[in-house]
């Protein structure tokens, strides 16, 4: 696990943490009381955390969204849900571990939970393909959404992918068709769908799990039509201008709430989700429960009509 990993702007936080740790060690060794010294340092640490994390620029958010210690789908499935039973395979080609899915309970209610899953280390990433699904991943998700529809179980998706995998096999087996089909079926799926962007929401590969009645975003996640690096390479022929692209593309949660693309921002604990995964899971669970219980009250036809209206209203243009 990359527990020592830190982002450049986290450096002052890490230094202060080390200082506190050092004092404590010293105190233990010499049986001294350092509470009077540690107290102010701890206050300073949380001040520093909020100062840094409340002023992140868009590309720093990208870095937080991709943080190797950021909680992934399975972390939330284990913390916010109970009784998870994983269901696998698309029944056509293979099981794609870049997407995990199965039945679980949320506050006692059964849901179908489907999420993109990144790996924590090289071995896991080989298996999970860095959370970048092949068509069979999207087809597994689709199969299980249809199961949920038949069982009248709501669908909860957790989005965390740099994008659908751009490889030979993926193209051969119809990556575009797999995404297109998910969109078409999700638009008319006769059961509630709540999607949450928990880390990276990378383009069509993210949307293929996010055509939903409610689209939520964790505070430090991003949702974009193209990676900042890709955008910079195409527009300015220079991938190093990624910070400028991240700013221009409006990919942070507050920007997307303003554009009407998402419905709610789920606040992360001080120092972002990776600093307190359990508290983040609690916040996620609370928000999911709230939205699911309000969606459950809707008649299915009304649910579908509202879902369509929601996406039909998206976009900005003038008419004549």
């Amino acid at each position, binding site marked *: 696990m990359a527990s020592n990993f830190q982002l450049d702007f986290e450096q002052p936080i890490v230094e202060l943490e080390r200082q506190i740790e050092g004092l404590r060690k010293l105190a233990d060794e010499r049986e001294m009381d350092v509470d009077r010294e540690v107290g102010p340092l701890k206050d300073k640490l949380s001040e520093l955390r909020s100062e840094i994390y409340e002023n992140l620029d868009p590309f720093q958010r990208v870095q937080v969204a991709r943080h190797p210690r950021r909680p992934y789908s399975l972390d939330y499935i284990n913390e916010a849900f109970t009784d998870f039973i994983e269901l696998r395979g698309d029944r056509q080609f293979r099981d794609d571990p870049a997407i995990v899915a199965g039945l679980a309970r949320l506050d006692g209610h059964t849901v179908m939970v489907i999420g993109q899953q990144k790996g924590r280390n090289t071995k896991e990433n080989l298996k999970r393909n860095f959370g970048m699904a092949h068509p069979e991943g999207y087809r597994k998700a689709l199969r299980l959404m249809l199961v949920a529809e038949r069982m009248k179980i709501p669908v909860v998706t957790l989005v965390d992918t740099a994008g659908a995998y*751009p490889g030979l096999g993926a193209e051969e087996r119809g990556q575009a068709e797999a995404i297109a089909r998910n969109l*078409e079926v999700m638009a008319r799926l006769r059961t509630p769908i709540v999607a949450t962007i928990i880390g990276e929401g990378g383009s069509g590969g993210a949307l293929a799990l996010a055509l939903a009645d409610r689209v939520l975003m964790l505070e430090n996640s991003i949702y*974009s039509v193209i990676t900042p690096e*890709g955008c910079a390479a195409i527009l300015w022929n220079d991938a190093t201008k990624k910070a400028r692209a991240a700013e221009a593309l409006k990919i942070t949660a507050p920007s997307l709430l303003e554009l009407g*693309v998402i419905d709610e921002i789920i606040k992360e604990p001080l120092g972002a989700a990776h600093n307190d995964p359990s508290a983040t899971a609690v916040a996620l669970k609370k928000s999911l429960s709230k939205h699911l219980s309000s969606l459950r009250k809707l008649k299915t036809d009304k649910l579908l009509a509202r*879902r369509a209206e929601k996406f039909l209203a*998206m*976009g900005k243009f003038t008419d004549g």
Partner: protein
Amino acid sequence: MAWFRKERKERPPPREKLEIPQDAWDKCSSCGTVDLTDKFERSHMVCHNCGHHGKIPAGTYIELITDPGTFTELFGDLTSVDPLGFDGYPDKLARAYNKVGKQDAILTGVGDIHGVTTCIGAMEFAFMGGSMGSVVGEKIARLARKALEDRAPLVLVSTSGGARMQEGVLSLMQLAKTSAMIAALKEEGIPFISVLTNPTTGGVSASYAMQGDVNIGEPKAVIGFAGARVIKQTIGQDLPDGFQRSEFLLEHGMLDMVVSRLEMKDTLGRLLRMMLGKEALELTG
């Protein structure tokens, strides 16, 4: 041999200066054959030597597949704005509207295809690479709604590099928007035929272009989700010949057929008349 004879150099006869406009000639981008632009245009940019399908404007495509004089443009007043304040986008838009036309990256309307009144949209690659922004999404949604209301079939001719990144996530949402309308059409049993021309990639291939009841590709059109450059970078090797071409997609089950542009109208007409239970037409003559 009168080598010694002083030959009077004959002056070449004064040539008539021909006014040949620069664009009188065109070249096939596939086999390099050079011919009169006029000849290329008369064959709808299909190379008579190798059959390569060059790009044609949206209006020309619609003329090619509709009965003469039957097409009426709809939703032509929809215009792109700059929703994100994206550096350089207003200028790019102004240039494209000026140079290419006010239809943005898609021309939409109603016309007859072999007597079948059809809602038709044709994308315009010259307009910012046929990129799908809010206007493209809205035009397709409105066209599909009209198809739903009139119970008329829908035909979309795609050519696009994908979503228009200058509109950020709003352009991504157009995949959802168009898919929602196509799904509604299908629920009502209204036929939708998707024609994929070179190139159809990214967000457009990952939404309506791949959602046809029938998907038709033009010969050798590049069709796929990821761009060749990105795939090459990812896998670190060259792509096999013919990868992501229509014929490759046909073989892998993503298209129903590959049809020459010159036979597109007849193919669409036959399909639509069959799908709608109309009697066969004599298409020859």
